[in-house]
C-alpha cells in the first residue's frame, strides 16, 4: 500500500520530463521513498542516482514546480483517477512491460470488459485506410473487444469514432495530459468516449501540452494495454511503425492491413507483412490472434452471417456509380461527365447513397464508404 503523502511525492517525481521508471524504482529503494528523494538536494541525488548535478537539479525543479494536490483534485473533478505502478488497480498488462508508466492518469473508467485490440495508423488517412479502419474497428467492437488507440487525427479518430457510434467503450491513450485535448477538434469525440464507458489515458501530468517526443512514448502504452496490435496504414517511417516495433519488443502479435505497393501510406504496413507481421484480411484474423485466455465472452457468431445486405439492395444506377468510383475519390463533376447524366439526377443519387452510408463525401469528393 502506498500512503497518500508518498502518492503525492510520486506524482511530483513523475513531472520530470526524462523520468525513467526503472531508475525511479531503484531510487525509491535507495532513498526509501519518493518523498525522501524530493527532500534531498541536487548534489546528493546526483551522487546516489548516478546522474549529473545539472540533471538532478532539473529533476528537483520540475518536481517541486508541480502541485500534486491540485493534480489529484483536477483529475477527480474531471471524472478520473491517478494510478501508481505496483498498486492493485494498476492495469496488469501495463505493469508487465519493460518501461511501464510510473504514474497513470485516466478519465472515465478502465472497467471495460473484453479483450483489448490496439488499432493505430497514419494521420494522413486515405479513403482506403478510412474504409479499413471503420470496418475493422466497428466489427471487432461488435464482437465485444475494446479498441485501444491514440486519439490522433486520421486512423485513430476513425477507430474511436466507429466504437463510439456503436455506443461501446474504447480507450484512448493520449500524448498530452488528460486535461488537454489534442488535436482540439477531437474534443467532442473525447467526451463521447467517456460517455460510452471508455477512458482517456495518459502518463503525463494533467495539463501537459502536446510535445513531439510524447507521442512515440505513449505508443508503448497503447501496445502494452492490448493483446494484439493492428496497423491500418502508415508510411515506412511513421508513428504507427514505431508502435509496431514496440509491440514486437513487448512480445505482442502485430497485424497489418496490406495495401497497394504504390500507395505511400501502405508502405509501412506492407513492409511489416514482409518482415513477418500477420496480414489482416478479415476481422476473424484479429479474433484468431487475441490471446486464448482473453477470448471469453467474444461474440463472433454474427460475423459468419455476412453483413453485406447493404450492397444487395442497391439500384442499378447506384451500382453503376460504385463501378465508376472504384477505389478512388471522385467528384460530382466527374460522375456527371463520366456517366453523361444530368447534374440534378446525379446530385440526387449521390445524396441518397451518402445518406445510406454507401459513399462518404469529404470536401466534395466521394469515395466508397464500405467494401
Amino acid at each position, binding site marked *: 500500500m502506498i500512503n497518500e503523502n508518498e502518492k503525492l511525492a510520486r506524482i511530483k517525481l513523475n513531472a520530470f520530463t526524462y523520468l525513467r521508471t526503472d531508475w525511479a524504482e531503484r531510487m525509491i529503494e535507495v532513498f526509501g521513498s519518493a518523498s525522501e528523494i524530493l527532500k534531498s538536494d541536487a548534489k546528493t541525488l546526483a551522487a546516489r542516482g548516478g546522474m549529473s548535478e545539472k540533471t538532478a537539479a532539473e529533476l528537483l525543479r520540475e518536481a517541486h514546480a508541480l502541485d500534486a494536490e491540485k493534480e489529484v483534485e483536477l483529475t477527480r473533478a474531471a471524472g478520473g483517477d491517478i494510478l501508481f505502478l505496483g498498486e492493485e488497480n494498476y492495469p496488469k498488462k501495463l505493469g508487465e512491460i519493460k518501461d511501464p508508466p510510473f504514474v497513470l492518469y485516466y478519465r472515465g473508467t478502465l472497467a471495460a470488459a473484453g479483450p483489448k485490440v490496439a488499432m493505430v495508423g497514419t494521420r494522413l*488517412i486515405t479513403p482506403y485506410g*478510412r474504409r479499413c479502419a471503420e470496418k475493422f474497428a466497428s466489427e471487432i467492437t461488435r464482437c465485444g473487444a475494446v479498441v485501444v488507440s491514440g486519439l490522433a*487525427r*486520421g486512423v485513430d*479518430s*476513425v477507430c474511436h*469514432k466507429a466504437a463510439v457510434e456503436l455506443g461501446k467503450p474504447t480507450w484512448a491513450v493520449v500524448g498530452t495530459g488528460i486535461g488537454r485535448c489534442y*488535436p482540439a*477538434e477531437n474534443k467532442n*469525440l473525447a467526451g463521447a468516449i467517456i460517455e460510452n464507458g471508455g477512458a482517456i489515458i495518459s502518463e503525463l501530468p494533467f495539463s501537459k501540452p502536446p510535445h513531439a517526443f510524447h507521442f512515440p512514448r505513449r505508443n508503448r502504452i497503447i501496445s502494452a494495454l492490448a493483446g494484439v496490435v493492428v496497423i491500418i496504414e502508415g508510411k515506412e517511417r511513421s508513428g504507427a511503425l514505431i508502435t509496431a516495433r514496440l509491440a514486437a519488443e513487448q512480445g505482442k502479435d502485430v497485424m497489418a492491413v496490406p495495401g497497394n505497393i504504390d500507395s505511400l501510406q501502405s508502405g509501412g504496413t506492407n513492409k511489416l507483412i514482409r518482415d513477418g507481421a500477420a496480414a489482416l484480411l478479415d476481422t476473424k484474423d484479429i479474433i484468431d490472434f487475441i490471446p486464448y485466455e482473453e477470448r471469453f465472452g467474444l461474440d463472433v457468431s454474427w460475423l459468419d452471417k455476412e453483413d453485406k445486405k447493404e450492397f444487395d439492395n442497391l439500384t442499378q444506377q447506384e451500382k453503376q456509380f460504385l463501378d465508376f468510383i472504384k477505389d478512388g475519390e471522385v*467528384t*460530382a*463533376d*466527374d460522375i*456527371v*461527365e463520366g456517366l453523361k447524366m444530368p*447534374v*440534378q*439526377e446525379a*446530385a*440526387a443519387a*449521390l*445524396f*441518397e447513397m*451518402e*445518406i445510406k452510408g454507401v459513399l462518404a463525401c*469529404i*470536401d*466534395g*469528393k466521394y469515395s466508397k464508404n464500405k467494401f
Partner: protein
Amino acid sequence: MLSTVLSAGVRGVDGFAIEVEADIAPGMPNMAVVGLADTEIKEAKERVISAVRNSGLEFPLKRITVNLSPADIKKSGTGLDLPIAVSILAASGQLNAAALDGLKNFVFVGELGLDGSLRPCAGVLPMLAVLGGRTAVVPPANAGEAALARVNAVAPKNLAELAGFLNGEINLEKIPPADFEAGTQEYFYDFSEVKSQPVAKRALEIAAAGGHNILMIGLPGTGKSMLAKRFPSILPPLTHDEALEITKIYSVSNLLGGERFLSARPFRDPHHTISDIALIGGGASPKPGEVSLSHNGILFLDEFAEFGRNVLEVLREPMETGVVSIARARERVSYPARFTLIAAMNPCPCGNHGHPHKQCTCTPVMINRYRSKISGPLLDRIDLTVNLNPVEFKDWEKKAEGETSAQIRERVIKARGAQAVRFKNSPTRANAFMSSREIKDFCPLPPGGGEVLEAAMRKLGLSARSLDKILKTARTIADLEGAENISKMHIMEVLQYRPLDRKGVADV
C-alpha cells in the same frame, strides 16, 4: 428685386424640392449664398458670375443674396449652379414678363461651366421625381435620365440658349421619352466557353433563376472568376422599373457616363482590400457603397476569405433585407441593395488542398481558421455552395460543347416568369427573398421530403435554420423544371450544394 426659381436636391436616392430665391438690392457688389450649402455650392457663385458674363448677359454689380429653401436641410452637389444663375437673371430683369410668369413651370438642375455651358451633374434622375407636371431643364448629358423617367424636359446647351428659350426667342426640342429596351444586350463572355464544371454551371443557373447567393470554392485556376464573369449573360434582362432603380443609384453616385442610362445589370467586383464603408456605403455625406451599386445585379467577391472580417459582417444586413440604412449625425439615408452575391474562395490558404498532383502545405488548423473567416450567420445567407475541381487535360482539350448563355438564359427567364406570377401580390421578386410565410405557402414538403431533410440534419449536421434556404432553393429548381410543386428529387439536389464542412480536412 426678388425672384424665386425651383430646383431639386437629393437625399439617399430620393429627390426633394428646393426653392432658390435671389434678392438684388443696392449696395456694395457682393454675393452671399445661404441655406446650409455645402462647399461646392459656395463655390457656385464664382462659376455663376463667369458663366453669366461669358454668355453675353450682365451680372449685376449690386448686393445679391441667394437663399436655398428649405434652409434646414443640408444641400450638396453642383446641380444648383443653373437655378442660382436663372434666379439672378430673373431678379436683375434680364428675362421678359412672360418668362418671369412662366418661371414657376420649370425646375432647373445643372452645373455651369465658366463659358456658360451646361455640364452634367449627379442625381438628376431621382430629382425628376419632384417635377409634379412641370418641365425639367437639365444638362444635355443628363438627357438620357430624363428620357428614362418619361417627363417633360428640355436640355439647353448653355445659359444663353436657355435665356433665349425662356424669353420665347428660340424653341427647344422636348426630350422624347425613351422606352427602355431590353434583350438587345450583347455579352462579351459566353457560358459555352467554360469547359467541364457541370455542377458549378448548374448551380449558377439555379442562382440566376431564383436570385440566390452562391459561394464557389475551388483551387486556383479552376474557373471561378471565369464563371462569375459569365454570370450576367444568363440573367434575365432588366425591366423598366429595375433599370430606373439602378440608374437612380448610379445617378446619385455620378457614375452614369455619357448620355446613357443603365441598361445592363450591374456587375461589381471590388478588390478584397475594400473598407466596410466603401462596401456598404457611407461617409460624412453618405454615398452608396458597392452593395447598392450592385442593386438588381451582381456583387462578385473574389478571394472571399481574404476580405476583412468586419467587411464581410456588414454584408449580413443588406443580404437579409435588401436595403442599407446609413445613419450619420446629420442625416439618415437608406439605399436599396438587393444583389446576388457571388463569392469565390480557395479551399485553403496555399490553394492546393485537394489538388490531385500538388501538395498542400497548410496545417489543418490553418485551413480551419481560413474557412472559419466566413461566419456561420453569413454562410446561412448563402443558399448554394459548389466545389470546383481542376480540369484535366482530356477535358480541356475537348472542344467547348457546353450550352450557350442564350440557352440557359431562356430557362432562367421561364423560371423567373413563374415567380412573377407567384409573387404578383407581394414585394418579393424572386424565390431567394421569400418571407417565412411565403415559404410556408409556396414550398410545401413533398411526400418523402421530410425523411430526406431529417436524414440530412442527422447525417450532415444541418441546422434547422438552413432548412428554409433548402426549401427556397428547391422551389427554384422546381421552377426551372416547370414543376407545380417541390419534389423529393429537388430537395436532394439542393443538398448537393451544401457548404464545406467546417472541420472539413480535420474531420475523420
